[in-house]
């Protein structure tokens, strides 16, 4: 067990000395996940609003599909993105493969169902009087959408935090679409996978600690938001 302990000590050294390789992976993770959470929110919250708000035939089926997509495996998303982004694929000319934007596209697909499902639930739970109040004060359809989303803002932030938690900890998409390129697309999770495979525990542990800290922050934020959204 010695190697674990010495790994831990070295891990703290890496963290406190600001090891550039370690922090490069952190930077990539934060960059890619921020991009993809932002995209998931921008695309997902209006969709979730429509799904939770509108009454149209087939709405229940759409809900089932979205709920199923919640458990879409990251390797399947990775596979799909790879197929589309490789130079033989239909999106090959965009040159997204092995880039941070490319990873963000895949992670957006991962985060989207979370945001859509949670927004839809939040909107369904909005008070019926809210809609009547907004309309009777003179809102047009666009203002109704925006004000309803704003009224559900804490629940929306909760959706964003949940999506962030899932995205920041995924490996499959980062590995397959990003390619785990050092100094470039290597993320916390792909670095841990690689370093552990090489028997280099120190950096793995250091990055694991950062990941845990991120997860803790997300959870603290979520519990605060839950209280506010009630």
């Amino acid at each position: 067990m010695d190697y674990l302990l010495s790994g831990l000590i070295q891990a703290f050294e890496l963290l406190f000395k600001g090891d550039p390789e370690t922090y490069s992976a952190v930077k990539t993770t934060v960059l890619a996940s921020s991009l993809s959470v932002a995209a998931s929110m921008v695309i997902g919250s209006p969709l979730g609003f429509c799904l939770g708000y509108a009454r149209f035939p087939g709405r229940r089926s759409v809900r089932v599909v979205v709920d199923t997509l919640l458990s879409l495996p990251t390797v399947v998303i990775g596979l799909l993105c790879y197929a589309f982004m490789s130079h033989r694929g239909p999106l090959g000319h965009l040159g997204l493969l092995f880039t941070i934007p490319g990873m963000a596209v895949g992670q957006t697909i991962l985060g989207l169902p979370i945001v859509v499902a949670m927004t839809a639930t939040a909107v369904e739970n909005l008070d019926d009087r809210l809609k009547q109040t907004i309309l009777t004060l003179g809102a047009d359809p666009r203002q109704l959408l925006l004000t309803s989303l704003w009224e559900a803002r804490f629940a929306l932030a909760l959706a964003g935090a949940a999506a962030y938690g899932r995205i920041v900890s995924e490996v499959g998409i980062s590995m397959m679409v990003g390619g785990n390129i050092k100094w470039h697309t290597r993320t916390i999770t792909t670095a841990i996978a690689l370093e552990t495979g090489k028997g280099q525990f120190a950096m793995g542990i250091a990055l694991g600690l950062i990941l845990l800290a991120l997860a803790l922050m997300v959870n603290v934020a979520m519990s605060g938001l839950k209280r506010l959204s009630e």
Partner: protein
Amino acid sequence: MSETLYHLEKVTQVYGHRTVLDVESLHIEARSITGVIGPNGSGKSTLMRILAFLEKPASGRVSFQDQPFTKVTLEQRRQVTMLNQEPYLLKRSVKGNISYGLKIRGISDTSRPVDRALSKVGLAPDKFLQRSWRELSGGEAQRVALAARLVLKPKVLLLDEPTASVDRESSELILRAALDARDQWGTTLIIISHQLTWLRQIADRILSMDYGRLSPVH
């Protein structure tokens, strides 16, 4: 010369298989004050929601300013506002709640009208403007909700039991505010209340709703 704002003919509303509203004929004159009484569940609020364009009737003809229900424009809808039976405030400050209707109409200079509307319902602006929606009692919330309607200087003001959760003094204030609205802006009022004596002080005519049907009260 009197102008008829609303024409309703054979208007019904159906929830599930139950007909909850069945109005033979109703005409609302501009600048009139109509009182509506009736037992719980008789369809009063349902009628109000139709007059406020918040729900479509199941059958019958409703027109507003000679425009059929489905053709009513946003501009026309904006002349009509309703105070819900259970008042609901947006999750923002008192000021944010009252200025909301002005802001979505593109009016940015809201502070004077908001102050005035708040004073009208008997709440001191310096004490209440910055309060958040959670820091209000039931009666205060109801009066803030009313101020949010008054600030719009509506052509039609629909009040669904405005005095249900306020004290005597406040129901006097609400009475005053309603009459002022009519006198100053020519507002047409339709008011639901269970307090017949209160209603008699203000309404030009009183209608009684029973099992979804309207009849005049003398």
